[in-house]
């Protein structure tokens, strides 16, 4: 079998057992990338030479009988808003088109410490602002299941790369659903960790208080494997929580008997595509068959989640993105003017329309006279949502909901209607406001397009969410299905 078809854990096992070399694997992925990228466009950059050198190093280690890491020889696609030392990190924006970070993000250091190989940087919505990967300065990524459709976003490149077998693992970031949305649209597993579990050091901020870096893979086991590598305390991130490291693969395979699952009524309500509702409810009954106890749970406050999310995210973004002024790095306008005009002109020319929209709205929401009405109120909504989740978790162990209210849509279908695009995030944002972990996994197909369900767990109970996802995946009729490309 071609190595690119293997999962991450299989690859590292085979390399460790000398059934395969890391070089063979990397070469296999590089040629897969070469043949598919013209169609899929998942990557912004591919690190061709560097990865071969790293692979050879790992092969030497194996040959010498030295210990190799958990991700030995495994190619990892990294979203282009995660800093990689000496490798362009663009946020898919013109303003950072040539930005080369002098340092690695903590997650990248951890992957490399386990002998994983960053194979390339993946496409995304500009500064992670979008749900379709269409706002990228480098052009959109395509959905591997239907090239005329979007892969979801903003981590669309990461999900597409994994789905199209251009990498067995990928890193994304999830501010309001940016890992789960493309995981759902591309038919892969994606996990948004508890806020504070994974270090944000090196993640180029969109909305700091909401976002986390998380893994994407074709299966739950690999997803758990990558989470085990990147998770855990980092003193360079003050919001990182000091807890003992965990191996998330160990809880997989436990059966679901007696597990209480709440099906979130609000998120399967009005406005959700019927095919999605059907798939998620069928998923619930499948879980019941496996011994889980399902019940409906209603959290009415979730109806305020979307506006609260956008206000907080845009407000923080307006401040985070202020640093791109053309003085120290990044795009600078050609014209020689005073600093004030250089700032304005560089930003006007360097940012895309959606980014500008969010900066302007966020600036407005933080301004004197509006702060209390918009920003502060949104924080209060977030607190209410957090509390209502806490209450729900007194009744059930995990919650089940659709990841997206709709199926992957066509490129260009919604891009001119920002509100319609914002509405797509309605099911994913509550989790970010509450800081909870959630896994999106494929729960069915409709007319050849994947549908995702998400399992939401209490803080730091990623193990529970992964356990459900893994159990369902083992029993699913479509297990092992991949897009034909």
């Amino acid at each position, binding site marked *: 079998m071609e190595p690119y078809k293997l999962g991450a854990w299989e690859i590292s096992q085979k390399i460790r057992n000398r059934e395969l070399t890391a070089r063979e694997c990397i070469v296999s992925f590089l040629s897969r990338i070469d043949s598919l990228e013209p169609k899929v466009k998942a990557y912004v950059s591919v690190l061709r030479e560097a990865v071969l050198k790293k692979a050879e190093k790992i092969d030497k280690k194996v040959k010498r009988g030295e210990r190799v890491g958990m991700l030995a020889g495994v190619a990892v696609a990294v979203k282009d808003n995660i800093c990689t030392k000496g490798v362009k990190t663009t946020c898919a924006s013109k303003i950072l088109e040539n*930005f080369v970070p002098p340092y690695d993000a903590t997650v990248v250091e951890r992957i490399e410490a386990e002998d994983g190989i960053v194979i390339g940087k993946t496409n995304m919505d500009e500064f992670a602002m979008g749900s379709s990967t269409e706002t990228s300065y480098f052009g959109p990524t395509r959905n591997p299941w239907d090239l005329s459709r979007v892969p979801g976003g903003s981590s669309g490149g990461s999900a597409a790369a994994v789905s199209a077998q251009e990498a067995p693992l990928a890193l994304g970031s999830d501010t309001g659903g940016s890992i789960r949305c493309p995981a759902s649209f591309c038919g892969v597993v994606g996990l948004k960790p508890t806020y504070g579990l994974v270090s944000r050091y090196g993640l180029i901020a969109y909305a700091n208080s909401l976002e986390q870096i998380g893994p994407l893979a074709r299966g739950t086991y690999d997803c758990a494997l990558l989470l085990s590598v990147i998770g855990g305390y980092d003193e360079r991130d003050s919001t990182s929580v000091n807890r003992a490291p965990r191996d998330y693969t160990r809880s997989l395979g436990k059966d679901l008997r007696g597990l209480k699952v709440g099906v979130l009524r609000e998120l399967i309500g009005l406005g959700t595509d019927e095919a999605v509702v059907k798939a998620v409810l069928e998923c619930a009954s499948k879980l019941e068959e496996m011994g889980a106890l399902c019940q409906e749970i209603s959290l009415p406050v979730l109806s305020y989640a979307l506006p609260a999310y956008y206000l907080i995210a845009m407000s923080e973004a307006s401040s985070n993105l202020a640093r791109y002024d053309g003085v120290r790095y990044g795009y600078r306008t050609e014209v020689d003017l005073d600093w004030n005009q250089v700032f304005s002109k560089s930003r006007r020319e360097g940012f895309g329309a959606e980014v500008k929209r969010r900066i302007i709205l966020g600036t407005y929401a933080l301004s004197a006279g509006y702060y209390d009405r918009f920003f502060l109120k949104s924080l209060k909504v977030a607190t209410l949502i957090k509390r209502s989740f806490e209450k729900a978790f007194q009744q059930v162990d995990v919650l089940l909901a659709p990841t997206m209210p709709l199926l992957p849509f066509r490129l260009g279908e919604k891009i001119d209607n920002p509100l319609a695009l914002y509405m797509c995030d309605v099911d994913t944002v509550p989790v970010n406001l509450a800081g909870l972990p959630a896994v999106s996994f494929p729960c069915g197909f409709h007319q050849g397009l994947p549908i995702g369900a998400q399992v939401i767990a209490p803080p730091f109970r990623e193990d529970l969410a992964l356990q459900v996802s893994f159990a369902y995946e083992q029993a699913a009729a479509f297990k092992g299905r991949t897009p034909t490309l």
Partner: protein
Amino acid sequence: MKIGLEIHCQLTSLKTKLFCGCSSDYRGKTPNTFVCPVCLGLPGSLPVLNEKAVELAVMVALALNCEVAPQTFFVRKNYFYPDMPKNFQISQYDVGGSIAIASGGWVGFLVGKTRKTVRLRRIHLEEDPGKLFYHGTIDTSPYTLVDYNRAGIALLEIVTEPELEAPAEARAFLQKLRSILEHLGVSDGGLEGAMRCDANISIEGGGRVEVKNISSFKDVERALTFEIVRQRDLLKKGVKIQTETRHWDDVRRTTLSLRVKEEEQDYRYFLEPDLTPVRISQEMVELLRSRMPELPDARKERFLKAYGLPEYDAEVLTSDRAMADFFEECAKLYDKPKAVANWLMGDVLQCLHSLEVDIDQAKLAPQYLAEMLKLMDRGDISIKIAKKVLWEVMKHGKSPSTVVREKDWWRITDLQTLEGYIAQVFKEYPKAVEDALVDEKTIHYLIGKTMEATGGKADPELTNALIRKKLSQMKKGS
């Protein structure tokens, strides 16, 4: 008239910056070499609080009689300026439930001989921006250079209520504040730019004018005086004084308008999401309180008791840590503390002013002053010579005995030499001699002339005796 001050003081005793591990010893270093991804605000970098800075801030709060918050937060102050790597400053502000590290408090100080107390509004921690360099002045420079070495240095902002009533009061307050901070050992005000100040001033019938960019305490008095004159002139002409922000130009010593009220900036404060709340436990506060060094007011009390100094002297000396240290060193070597105090507050201070140095950078060491005082006591030099010796010591750093030896300033006690000088004076001023023969009170003229002739080296008592002797001999002789 009401004056309020915002003092920005660097916590210079910290080895590293407020949110990263970069060295804070940036002065005189190659621009943009004391930086890292965090203090340069590179994409993806995150701040981590230097906990030592919180301890120092709490100590300052305790020293200034403030109330320390049990929990404090950082916020972002958003505005665009090229000296700010992130185009926002991590600071503290009372917004959305967030509070600064300390509030309230007061400082007592002496203005001339009057005691005054100014209340404080709050104290907070923030990061210093980088430094801008202009070619010439701000309004004519064709370009601006930025050095981010200073960016991220821990800064303490101390805000007073608008209760100061004259530029001299502002200066006296700042002097006392600096002394407190130096006694705490948190900030060395002698370092360039370590203590900077914004002043707001409103005079009867006018709007509130804020003056920014005052980089030394001496300039505070200058800038305020300038503003008062400017505003009073406008009022006389019937022009209303508008609320505005002005820039102190320390080269031309004037203020320039930056923006008027309509353009007042909205900083869009909000909680810094990359930092977590900082808890300040009562135990920590008590521990720091127990470690507090002696502060100026306590030191003053000790000076009253231990050295028997008058209150005014004790206050003046302790309002400058280096001066107080100097005094104590010197008083160890010379057992008349009042004389030491007199010299320090008089001639020494005068010399320092005209040489434009602080006592801790001066060439005068405590043992030199003590030695000089001993020379005077022994009668080796007169007070007049002593003043000259002081100048020489301050200028060249030589010991008083060396100066006296090299200059041959020893007091003339040799009878023959002195009689020679007196004979000369008698010859030159016959009229004065005649007067003195008639009226003994006029003898002082002759003594003065003799002192003058010897360059002040003559022993006054001996001179007096010899002149009287000579006069009586003349009387007898006639």
